[in-house]
């Protein structure tokens, strides 16, 4: 190929793009309504600023939370099924290397990490798999809080009702920490946001 330029190709499959943005909306609603629910009975010595919460008051926040949970769970299940069946997870996430991820983070902090379109680096792999696990923990601990009698085995597995509330909080914290990095990079690294909509980028095969 002349000048080594790569031809545009689909780097993000349509299924991944759609579930990504549906998930983004669901997470946005779940986190902001969750913050308002947290404020009704704070676990720790702080509250979330009211203007950055969703629902207005507890009933509104709960209505949002228990509506969006379906979107989050069903969309998440569709994504997991697709990822496992299509081979997307195997091709994109494996192998996982914590050492490689650590090296990549160091490189990225020095501005030396090359972003190759269509291929996740070691840090991305660890972070993406990590946030998927955090969402799964958030959903399971959420179910444990929602149904501590009907799903009491799950609640017991989380260490009981009060412990499940804390698990739920820290799963949220992990997701939000991921989002700070994820959104920060998505808007600052040139040319990676558009392909998440169009799917296409100039990338090596």
């Amino acid at each position, binding site marked *: 190929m002349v000048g080594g330029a790569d031809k545009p190709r689909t780097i993000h499959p349509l299924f991944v793009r759609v579930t990504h943005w549906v998930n983004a909306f669901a997470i*946005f609603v779940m986190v*902001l309504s969750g913050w*308002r*629910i*947290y404020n*009704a*009975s704070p*676990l720790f010595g702080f509250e979330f600023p*009211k*203007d*950055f*919460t*969703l*629902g*207005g*008051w*507890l*009933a*509104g*926040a*709960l*209505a*949002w939370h*228990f*509506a969006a949970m*379906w979107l989050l769970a069903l969309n998440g299940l569709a994504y997991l099924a697709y990822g496992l069946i299509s081979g997307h997870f195997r091709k994109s996430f494996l192998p996982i290397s914590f050492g490689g991820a650590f090296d990549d983070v160091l490189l990225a902090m020095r501005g030396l990490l090359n972003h190759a379109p269509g291929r996740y680096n070691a840090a991305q792999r660890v972070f993406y798999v990590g946030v998927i696990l955090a969402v799964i923990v958030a959903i399971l601990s959420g179910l444990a*809080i929602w*149904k*501590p*009698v*009907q799903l*009491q085995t799950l609640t*017991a597995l989380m260490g009981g*009702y*009060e412990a499940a*509330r804390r698990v739920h909080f820290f799963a949220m914290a992990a997701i939000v920490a991921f989002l700070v990095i994820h959104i920060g990079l998505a808007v600052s690294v040139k040319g990676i946001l558009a392909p998440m909509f169009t799917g296409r980028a100039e990338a090596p095969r």
Partner: protein
Amino acid sequence: MKPPRSERLSAFRPQIARLERRLFLKQGLSLGALSLLSGCTLKDDDAVDRLLMTMSRFNDKIQAALFDPAKLAPTYSQADVTTPFPFNAYYEEKDVPLIDGESYRLQLSGLIADKRPWSLDELRALPQSSQITRLVCVEGWSAIGQWRGVAFRHFLEQVGADLTARYVGFKCADKYYSSIDMPSALHPQTLLALDFTDAKYGYPLRLRLPTKLGFKNPKFIGEIFVTNDYPGGYWEDKGYNWFSGS
């Protein structure tokens, strides 16, 4: 001539009240986490409101399906009991109703064969049982308490309530009201509680069911009714999910 401003306003008061009730979710929207962060303003608030209420009714059905009438809530030991037990109501602790136990009569209405009122002595003459269970508040906190009283199923059978009816409703001395589904009313751990740590938690009679959130456990009960018409509730009418099962 125009009527005075206050009269003109009062003519619209019912509509205003209705509007306020409908706006409970809108306030949250206009507050704008959504508009603020995404840069879009949701103009069609009513549709969002309706969607959320539809989802809440859908969640009622899911929870009813998930409810296992034989599954018991975990029980705890005396040592686990939370002291002092948190007081929680829509009013302050100093405003709890004071009820004279001597003259108290529990009223019955609706789909119940024998609607004779019950005195406290008559209720105490029924078999009593006790439970130490966790009360989970809709706000998130929880506390373990002990309650003793009449198995609600036994009471409903005793008065000839229509056990195939959909709802059991409660009217309380503190102007609180609520309602539960019949399967939850018949759950073995659902109690008409006569004994608890302090009068402020609902003397002389409250409902205790560990299979639902705290606000579905009405205190200071004055009347119980059985019906097929959705009775709603104090918080439920303001937007809390009706089933609110645990």
